């Protein structure tokens, strides 16, 4: 679907990434990572940086309890 809107890349404390319209205020609990642009550009960026999709707190807990 054609979408000319401008977006920003956002992430939360679990290091989960998503996109958000640039003209709307960023929701509670999320912050921008500085990247903005078209929808595709933002998604391209996320594809590069979001390498581990497990929630951060889960990763930490698994690290603590040792490898499975």
């Amino acid at each position: 679907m054609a979408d000319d809107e401008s977006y920003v890349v956002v992430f939360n404390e679990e290091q989960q990434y998503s996109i958000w319209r640039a003209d709307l205020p960023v929701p509670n609990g999320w912050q921008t990572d500085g990247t903005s642009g078209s929808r595709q550009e933002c998604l391209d960026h996320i594809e590069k940086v979001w390498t581990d999709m497990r929630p951060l707190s889960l990763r930490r807990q698994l690290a603590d309890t040792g490898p499975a």
Partner: protein
Amino acid sequence: MTQQPLRLTAEQRSLLDRLLDEDGVGSRVAEVRRWTGDRAHAPLSFAQQRLYFVDGLRPGTPNYLVAGVLRLRGELDVDSLVRAVRLLVYRHEALRTAIVPGADGPEQRVQPSLLCPVDIPVREIGRADVDEHVALFARTGFDLAEPPLFRLELLRVREHGPDPDAAPDWVLAVCVHHIVVDGWSLGVLLRELGEAYQAFSRGGRPRLADLPVQYVDFAVWQREHLRGDVLARQLAFWRAELDQLPTAQMATDRPRPAERTYAGDFIRFGVGDATLDRLNALAQSTRSTLFMVLVAAVSVVVGRWTGERDVLLGSPVAGRPQAELDGVIGMFVNTVPLRLRFDERQSFRTMLAAVQRVCTAAYAHHDLPYERIVQEIAPDRDVSGQTPLARYWIVLHNTPTLGFSALDLAAEFEPVLGDTVRCDVSFQFVLANGALTGRVEYSTELFTQDTTCRLVSAVETVLAAVAGDPDCAVAAVPVLPDGARAELLERFSGAGSPPVTGTNPAHAFEAHADRAPDAVAVVAGAARVTYRDLDGLANRVAEGLRTHGIGPEGRVGIMTEAAGPVRIAAVLGVLKAGAACFMLDPGHPPARIATLVATGAPGLVLADPGVVDRLQPGSPVAELPSVLARPPAPRTAPAPNRPDTIAYLLFTSGSTGLPKGVLGTYGGLVNRLDGMQRAYRLQPADRVLCKAAATFDVSLWEMLWPLTVGATVVCAGPDGHRDVEHLHELIDREAVTVAHFVPSLLQAFVDGPGHDSLRVLFSGGEELPAALAEQVLERFPAAALYNQYGPTETAIDVTATRVTRPVANPVPIGRPVPGVEIYVLDELLRPQPVGVPGELFVGGIAVARGYMDDPRRTAERFLPHPFRPVQRLYATGDRVRWLADGNLEFLGRTDRQLKIRGNRVEPGDVEAAILAYPAVTRAYVTSHVDRDEPELVGYYSGNVPGLALRQFLAGRLPEPMVPTHLVAVTEWPSGSHGKIDTSALPAPDGALPADPAYVAPRTATEGILAEIFADLLGRDRISVADSFLALGGHSLMAIKAISRIRARLGAAVRLGQFFQTPTVAGLAALIDQHDDTTAPAEASPLVRVERRPHA
């Protein structure tokens, strides 16, 4: 309903004139002069033509009456009143005009007043009976051929008021047909009545100003004036202004009936003084008017309701630009379409400037009657007579209260508001005594009072918001008052029900294995496996995984040919290890399996020996028989799973392209299983059918739910999800009590025998057609039927409802299930009011982690939760709306919207219309590209004649939404998981249904009819089966056709009859049937008319 015209105050008029002069648009309008033609055969004005047409559909309809009561207190000189009325009848030709059929269409016939006596019956009536009597009086229609088209009644109220010595009360009830009068005219009538009465009662003679012209003169002038350049200019303006009209409408509560009664009701509301002051200040500071501010505010509301920022509002105007028309009684009111397109990112103030430009331009071109605009630019297709051009009206009544004043009499006038409304919704504002109040009138055939209350609430909210902050972006202007918003986010959403975080399903199973080890856990063919034995098998699997180093977050592929104890043991084993089940279908092409395995990256694949070869060499495989042949293993220590660890990986094909691997969590799975148990209360004696494909998430609960409560899983054979005969046999043999079907399979299943054992039936995975639901309830009267909805990305199902009689059409998808949050949001992620379509978003524990190794598509669909910090919502891409009772109505996919000849079409809406036709069992609408132009194709199944379906749709849908091709489907191609494979539907073969070859007229009657059609439609020849409407004939042309039929064949065909059979053959049959002298008189629907020589 009294239609009060828009009347600008002097200040507004001068502002408008100034603006028009600045634009160079205003031009001196030519004077209306007295016509010298025969006033017994005068043409109709365009507005009158339209009313004549509407009346013709339902002769004597009470829908177009202007009525009111004049309450008088004092000594009433009845004779003088009668004389005054008679004077007015003499003075105003409109009051003694009839509308009669003529040689080439209807005519106005002005009668001399001698031939038009007006009677004023005087009655005594009890005070308590007045209102009811007046209401009845105001609803009595007229025969347009019998003047006067107005009547009066004088009521003397029997009981006195509180003061026993006071003079009696009188009520003068007035009722006039709108074809000769409008609101302004009523004002003139009452004012002059007062003056005349006053003069007569004092023994004098009234002195009323000269009337240089009458309504007939205006009608003639209108035709002469609107020609050549003038006409061309106005048409050009409107063509440009109304180019590519939005097709979106407000979603109605009831389907639009083909036959309308126009019944209506209204809701009042008020605008506070402080708000009004600010709105006036805003108008002034932007050099616009209060009316324009109201137009902008209403557009914001209507835009939210239709989903398009392109809104068309009808604005009634007085229609009397010439001063010489001020005192004339007649039908002048015109409706001006206001086309408002706005960008929500701009401020309301900026939007107001745009609204101002639109209004100014529109009023500068309001000479072109609305009917003409409709005829030239948007010819109506609605057989019920209503033009679909302006479904929503806005009016600001600024007229001072109608004044009848006479000394010795205290008088008060009150319009009698009818219970009809001529558009879908009419936003009426009244500015009186410095206060702004409103009424929203709505069609009760389409909307409920509830829905309209929400609209009213939205208007109030918007006005208050923009009054407070006009520079706020339109996108930020709320349409929901705080209470309603909170209700949607807290109550409707289900957010109030906390999720259940229970035990790992495997541990629940273990508890039952301990409690009743000999109970049968799984039935497959002849095999019966007890809980104890199944637990043993599962433990071996879990132990095997442990030795492989697989635990939480590990993915284990499971690939077996059929459901059975082996597959189930594998699943349980994986869950015991706290890992994730990665279900694989050995029936898929090896290339696909390879892709899935590469993406899923399982630590191990547990497979049937016979299917190991489906995997790429080098994959980590363990054959299930060897795993299960291991020595018995004890239970592994329960792995405490965080709810957000993954429990399963299922690939979903989705509607486009590459499959996505959904990572479901333990939290989501556990919550769903527990939710199902709480809702449907499975017992240990229950026997649950397990037949869904392993890659379909439903299979997870088919396998696990029974085992968490001590019940039995009954496995179908390998082709279980398709082989209906096998299922019937199995259900009988094993006395299955619970089963799930996708509707496609359910349709085939319900055609077979019933089963007494079945007590719960689930339908999900596709839309459940109402007709099918009915059949199921009929076939399984003892079973409870539930409709469920849920994408793979959200733990199996997120909404459900029990389906009972009467079955709603469409069948709702239900309410949020426990632990799930549901939101209906627009593109800006704002909650949509109840009844307004939006996209369905899911929140809460049911939301999957995302797509395996696909951050891009995960980020795209799993979005920041606007209402709960840190959380995410899954965007389903499904279009739904809330119903007032908290259920959801499914409308289609958001990504299915099509563009057909420039019009946006929602296939879901067209499908709903097709499904509304009785006996249609399923519908699917898509586009088909033919010679570079996409066209709509409607696929349908059911015993339905294509031509009848087409006519049905043409009567219900706007023209761009009626499918060009209608294709009957006897067998729907089945795809993965048993759902419809829409890509396998046959392309339309290009032949329009019922495109008959040319058939020449066969009788004299047919011949004449064909000539009349051909002449009016501008065609060389007309086949006897051709529809007048399909060939481009519209309503006004139909009136001409009827006149000519009357003239040449002497038969009076009624409009309704014409539209029912608009073909040469059909009409000829109707006409000739009357001629047949053997037919009884009652059978003949036509009236014999004296033949007139053909002009």
